[in-house]
C-alpha cells in the first residue's frame, strides 16, 4: 500500500469517526465512491471502533514495573478468582496487592486484597489469617470497611472487601495540614470506629494514614482491621506480645505510628491504637508527623523518648498529649473516651466563628536526643536484627554459599557443565571483597542433598545461600538463581537469565552482580570492571574445559592425564582460553607431585602453559596460583609466595590458595603463619578434605601433635575412611609417641589404597624407629631390588635408612632424590623424621641447595 493510499484511508476514517452514526453512511458513500477496495479498508478499521474505547488506554507501565521487580504476581483484568472477575489492579502495599473486581454472584464491585505470600508460609499462619479476617468481618460500623468474604486462590488467601471510591488519608493530607474542623470530623469518625472494634475485642495494631480511607462523601473507613497481627511471626502472635512484622520494610514503613510498647516488644492492647490515633490526629492538624527523624533510628528514638512540639490549641493539644503518653497506663484509656473528647472539641470548633489556630509552637529540642538514639539503636537491633545493618551503613560482610547448580535439562551429560557453571559463579562472586564465598569443594558435597537450606547454612556457617539451576539448549544457556536467607529459609530474590552459550561468562557475571546487589555488597570499581569484561567462549571449548575440571577433581594419575587431554582439546578449539592453559599446567604439576611422572615430563611444559595462561589473562587467580604451585615445586619459595598472594587477592574464596600458603609457610618453619593460612582455608572451604587435612599438617609442623590428632579425627568424621587422612593421622600418633595407634592408622590407610604392606616404606620407617629393625630391613631389601628395575622415589628409601639411623646411606639416597627434583626436599627443614640427621653438614648443604636456609 502506498503512503498516499494510507493517508487517504486514514483521512476518511477520521472524518467518519467524527460524525454521528446517522450521517456516516452518506459520508462513506461520497468519500469512497466506487472504489470498493478503499471502502473495505475503511470499513474494516471502523468496525473496530466499539472495541477501541478502553483498548490500551491503561498504560502497561505499572505491569512492566512489577515484572521488573519479580515476586509480584499479577492478576490481569478479565481473569477470575472464584466468583470474582478482576477489573483492575489498584495498587500494592506492604499488606499485599489490591484489585478492583466484580462479584458475579452478588453483582457488586469489591476490592480483593491478596496477602503477600511470605506471610502465609504455613497452615498456622493461614489459620490465623482466617481467624482475624473473620473477626474483622464481624465488625459492622459505618467507619469500618466491610469485609465480605475470605477466600483462597491458588494457595493465596485473599479478602473481598467493600469497594470504595476515594483516597487514603495519606493521599488526602498531601503532606499538609487539614482545616481543623475537617481534621476533627475525621478524628471523630475514626474514634467511633475504633470504639466499636475495641468493644468486640479487635485491635487494629497498624493504624496509619495509609489504612484510613476517605470517601468522596468525607466518610472515613478504617481498613485492614486485625491484619497486622497476621504478619507477625507465629510464636509471637500466638503469645500476643510483639507486634513487629517480620518484613523489615514494613516495620520501617509503619514505625512512625507504633506505640512505645509495640516498639519495645511488650504486650499490646487497644491502647496502642489510641497512641496511633494521637499521632494521626497530630499529623492531620499540623501537617507534620509527631515523631519523625531523618532515619528510622531517629524516629524510634522520638517515639520512645520525646514529646512532639505542642499544638497551639490547648484543648486539642491536651487530647493529643493524653493519647501520646509513653506509658499505656497513663494514656487515655478508651476509644469511646477519645470519641467524646473529640465530640466536645468539634462542638467548640463548630461554635466558634473564626477558624482555630492549629499551627505549631516553636519547636523544642530534646537535650536527650543523642543518648536516646543510642538506646533506640539497641532497641532496634534487638527487634529487627540483621536487616538494619545495611540501613545503618555498618560495614557488613556477607557469608555466602552457592549450592551446586542444578542440571534441569533431561540430559545427564550436562551435569559436568552445571558443575563448571557452579565454579564460575563462585569465582565471580568471590572476587567481590564484601562477600565471603564458600569454595567449590565444600558446596559440591551438597549435590542432590536432602538437607534443608537452613541445615546447610548452619553446616557451612553462611548467612545466605544461592541456589540455581542451569539449562543449555540450542546454543543458549539459561540460569535461574535464587537467594535464600540461611537462618529463616526466606526467599529473598530470584531471577532468570538467558544468553547465547558463547556469552555464558557474561551471563554468570550478570548473575553475580545481581546477587551482590541483592546482599548489598558494594563493588569497588575494579571489581565491577572485572565482572564487566568477560570474553566470549567457544561452546565446544567450554565443554572440553568442564570435562578437564571434572577429571582434575578425581585426582588420580589416570584422571589427571585425561584432564590434561581435555584441557588441550579446549585450548585447541579456543586458542585464547586462558583457564584451559592454567588447568593443564596445574594437572601436570599434580602428576609430578604425586610421583606419577618425572620432573622433565611435566614441569617444563607446565611452566610454558601457565605463562601462556597469564599472557592471555593476567587477572586469573587460578593461573597465578598454579604458577605459585609450580615455583613451590621448584623450591622457589619467594616466587611461589608472591604469585600465591596475587592469586589470593584476586579470588579470596579459592581455597587452593590457602592450601599452598599453608604448605609454603609450614615447610619454611613459620608455624603461626601456616596455622593461620590453614584456618583461612577452612573458612573458605569448611568441608573439603584438603583444607581439613592442611590444618592438621600445620599443627604437625608446629609440633602440636595433640591438636593435629584432634584435627585429623575431626576431618575423618567428615570424610570417613579417607586414606590420606588416616596416613597423616598415623604419623601424628607416631610423632606423639603412640606408635601402636600410629601403625594401626597407617596400616588401614595402606589397606584402603591396596598397597602391599611388605613394600610400604612408611610402615618400615615406623618399625625401624620402634625397634623392629628386622621387619624394616625386609622392606628395604625388597624396595632396593625393585629400585634396580624400575624408577622409584629415592626419598622413600632414604626414609627407611633414616629410621634405621644409617645416616650416610640416607644422605646418599636423599642426594638422588634431590637430583630428581623430589618433592620430599620440601620437607627437609621442619619434618620431624629428619630431626636426627638435620645437623649433619651434608644435610645442611642439601637444605641450602633447596633454599630452605
Amino acid at each position, binding site marked *: 500500500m502506498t503512503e498516499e493510499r494510507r493517508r487517504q484511508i486514514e483521512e476518511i476514517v477520521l472524518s467518519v469517526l467524527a460524525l454521528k452514526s446517522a450521517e456516516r453512511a452518506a459520508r462513506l458513500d461520497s468519500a469512497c465512491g466506487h472504489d470498493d477496495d478503499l471502502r473495505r479498508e475503511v470499513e474494516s478499521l471502523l468496525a473496530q471502533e466499539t472495541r477501541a474505547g478502553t*483498548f490500551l488506554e491503561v498504560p502497561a*507501565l505499572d505491569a512492566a514495573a512489577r*515484572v521488573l521487580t519479580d515476586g*509480584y*504476581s499479577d492478576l490481569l483484568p478479565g481473569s477470575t478468582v472464584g466468583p470474582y472477575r478482576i477489573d483492575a489492579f489498584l495498587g500494592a*502495599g506492604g499488606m499485599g496487592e489490591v484489585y478492583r473486581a466484580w462479584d458475579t454472584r452478588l453483582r457488586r464491585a469489591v476490592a480483593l486484597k491478596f496477602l503477600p505470600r511470605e506471610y502465609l508460609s504455613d497452615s498456622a499462619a493461614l489459620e490465623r489469617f482466617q481467624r482475624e479476617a473473620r473477626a474483622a468481618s464481624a465488625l459492622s460500623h459505618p467507619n469500618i470497611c466491610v469485609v465480605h468474604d475470605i477466600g483462597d486462590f491458588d494457595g493465596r488467601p485473599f479478602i473481598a472487601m467493600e469497594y470504595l471510591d476515594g483516597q487514603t488519608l495519606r493521599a488526602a493530607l498531601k503532606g499538609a495540614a487539614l482545616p481543623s474542623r475537617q481534621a476533627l470530623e475525621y478524628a471523630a469518625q475514626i474514634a467511633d470506629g475504633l470504639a466499636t472494634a475495641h468493644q468486640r475485642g479487635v485491635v487494629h495494631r497498624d493504624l496509619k494514614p495509609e489504612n484510613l480511607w476517605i470517601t468522596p462523601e468525607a466518610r472515613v473507613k478504617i481498613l485492614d482491621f486485625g491484619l497486622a497481627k497476621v504478619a507477625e511471626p507465629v510464636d509471637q502472635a500466638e503469645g500476643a506480645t510483639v507486634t513487629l512484622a517480620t518484613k523489615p520494610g514494613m516495620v520501617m514503613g509503619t514505625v512512625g505510628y507504633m506505640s512505645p510498647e509495640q516498639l519495645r516488644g511488650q504486650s499490646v492492647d487497644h491502647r496502642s491504637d489510641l497512641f496511633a490515633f494521637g499521632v494521626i490526629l497530630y499529623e492531620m492538624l499540623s501537617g507534620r508527623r509527631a515523631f519523625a527523624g531523618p532515619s528510622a533510628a531517629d524516629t524510634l528514638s522520638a517515639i520512645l523518648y520525646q514529646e512532639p512540639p505542642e499544638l497551639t490549641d490547648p484543648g486539642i493539644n491536651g487530647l493529643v498529649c493524653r493519647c501520646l503518653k509513653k506509658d499505656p497506663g497513663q494514656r487515655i484509656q478508651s476509644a469511646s473516651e477519645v470519641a467524646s473528647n473529640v465530640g466536645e472539641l468539634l462542638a467548640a470548633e463548630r461554635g466558634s466563628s473564626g477558624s482555630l489556630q492549629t499551627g505549631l509552637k516553636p519547636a523544642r529540642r530534646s537535650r536527650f536526643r543523642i543518648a536516646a538514639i543510642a538506646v533506640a539503636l539497641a532497641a532496634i537491633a534487638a527487634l529487627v536484627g540483621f536487616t538494619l545493618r545495611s540501613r545503618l551503613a555498618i560495614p557488613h560482610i556477607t557469608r555466602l554459599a552457592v549450592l551446586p547448580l542444578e542440571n534441569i535439562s533431561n540430559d545427564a551429560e550436562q551435569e559436568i557443565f552445571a558443575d563448571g557453571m557452579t565454579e564460575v559463579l563462585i569465582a565471580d562472586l568471590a572476587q567481590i571483597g564484601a562477600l565471603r564465598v564458600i569454595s567449590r569443594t565444600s558446596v559440591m558435597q551438597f549435590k542432590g542433598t536432602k538437607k534443608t537450606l537452613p541445615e546447610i547454612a548452619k553446616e557451612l556457617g553462611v548467612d545466605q545461600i544461592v541456589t540455581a*539451576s542451569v539449562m543449555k539448549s540450542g546454543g543458549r544457556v539459561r540460569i535461574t538463581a535464587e537467594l535464600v536467607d540461611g537462618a529463616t529459609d526466606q526467599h529473598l530474590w*530470584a531471577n*532468570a537469565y538467558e544468553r547465547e552459550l558463547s556469552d555464558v561468562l557474561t551471563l554468570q557475571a550478570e548473575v553475580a552482580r545481581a546477587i551482590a546487589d541483592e546482599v548489598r555488597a558494594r563493588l569497588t570499581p575494579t571489581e565491577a570492571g572485572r565482572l564487566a569484561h568477560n570474553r566470549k567462549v567457544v561452546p565446544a571449548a567450554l565443554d572440553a574445559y568442564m570435562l578437564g575440571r571434572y577429571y582434575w577433581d578425581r585426582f588420580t594419575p589416570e584422571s589427571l592425564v585425561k584432564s590434561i587431554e581435555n584441557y588441550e582439546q579446549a585450548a585447541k578449539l579456543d586458542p585464547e582460553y586462558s583457564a584451559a592453559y592454567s588447568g593443564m599446567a596445574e594437572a601436570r604439576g599434580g602428576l609430578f607431585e604425586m610421583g606419577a611422572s618425572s620432573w622433565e615430563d611435566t614441569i617444563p611444559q607446565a611452566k610454558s602453559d601457565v605463562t601462556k595462561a597469564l599472557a592471555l589473562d593476567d587477572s586469573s587467580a587460578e593461573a597465578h596460583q598454579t604458577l605459585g604451585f609450580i615455583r613451590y615445586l621448584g623450591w622457589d619459595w619467594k616466587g611461589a609466595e608472591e604469585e600465591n598472594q596475587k592469586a589470593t587477592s584476586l579470588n579470596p574464596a579459592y581455597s587452593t590458595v590457602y592450601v599452598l600458603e599453608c604448605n609454603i609457610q609450614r615447610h619454611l618453619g613459620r608455624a603461626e603463619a601456616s596455622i593461620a593460612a590453614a584456618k583461612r582455608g577452612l573458612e573458605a572451604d569448611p568441608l573439603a578434605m584438603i583444607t581439613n587435612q592442611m590444618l592438621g599438617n600445620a599443627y604437625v609442623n608446629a609440633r602440636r601433635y595433640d591438636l593435629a590428632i584432634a584435627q585429623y579425627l575431626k576431618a575423618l568424621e567428615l570424610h570417613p575412611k579417607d586414606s590420606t587422612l588416616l596416613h597423616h593421622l598415623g604419623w601424628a600418633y607416631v610423632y606423639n609417641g603412640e606408635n601402636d595407634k600410629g601403625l594401626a592408622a597407617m596400616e588401614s590407610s595402606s589397606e584402603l589404597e591396596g598397597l602391599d604392606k611388605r613394600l610400604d616404606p612408611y610402615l618400615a620407617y615406623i618399625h625401624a624407629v620402634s625397634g623392629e629393625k628386622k621387619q624394616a630391613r625386609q622392606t628395604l631389601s625388597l624396595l632396593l631390588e625393585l629400585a634396580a628395575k624400575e624408577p622409584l622415589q629415592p626419598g622413600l628409601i632414604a626414609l627407611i635408612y633414616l629410621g634405621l639411623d644409617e645416616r650416610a646411606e640416607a644422605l646418599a639416597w636423599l642426594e638422588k632424590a634431590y637430583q630428581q627434583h623430589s618433592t620430599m626436599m620440601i620437607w627437609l627443614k621442619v619434618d620431624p623424621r629428619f630431626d636426627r640427621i638435620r645437623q649433619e653438614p651434608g644435610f645442611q648443604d642439601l637444605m641450602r641447595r633447596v633454599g630452605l636456609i
Partner: protein
Amino acid sequence: MEEVTALLQAWSGGDQAAFDKLAPVVYNELRRLARHHMARERPDHTLQPTALVHEAYLRMANFQHLHWKNRVHFFAISSQVMRRVLVDFARSRERLKRGRTPQRLSLDECTNVGQQHDAALIALDDALTTLDASDARKCRVVEMKFFGGLSTEEIAESLRVSPDTVLRDWKLAKLWLLRELNTKDAR
C-alpha cells in the same frame, strides 16, 4: 553516566546502534530502582511507575547538561525497554508452559495466572512489529503511551510533531492494531 548522555544524543540524532547500547543500561537502572522501591527501602511500599522512570532519568543523566528534549528521548527509550521487558517476560512464560516446567523457576512460581494475557501481549507485540514496518511513527506513539505511560505532550515533543498528530496517530493505530489482532484471531 557521561556515556548515557552521549548515547542519548546519538540516538536522538538517529543512531539506532546507540539504542542497543542504551537499552540494557536503562533496563538495569529501571530494574534496580523498581526492586529498590518494592523491596524495603521505601516505607510506604507503593510503586509509581511513572515516578520510577523519572527517577531513573534523574539518576542516570547528568541533568544539568541535558535539556528537556533529552529527557523526552530518555522516556521514549524507557518505553521501548518496558515493551521488551513485558514481552520477553510473557514469551518466557509461554515457553515454560510448553516445555517441561523446571521445578524451581521463579518466574513460573510468582505468576501462575494471567497466561491468557501473555498470549495477548505477545500478539500485540507481533502486531506492533508489523505496524513498525509500515508506519514506524504510530508504533512509537503506541509504545510511548501504552508501555511508557507518557503524556500526549511528551510524545509530541519526542517525535517532533504536534499533539494533535499524536492523538490522530493514537486513534488510528488502535483501530489498525485491533483489526490486525482480530484477523490474526480468525485465522
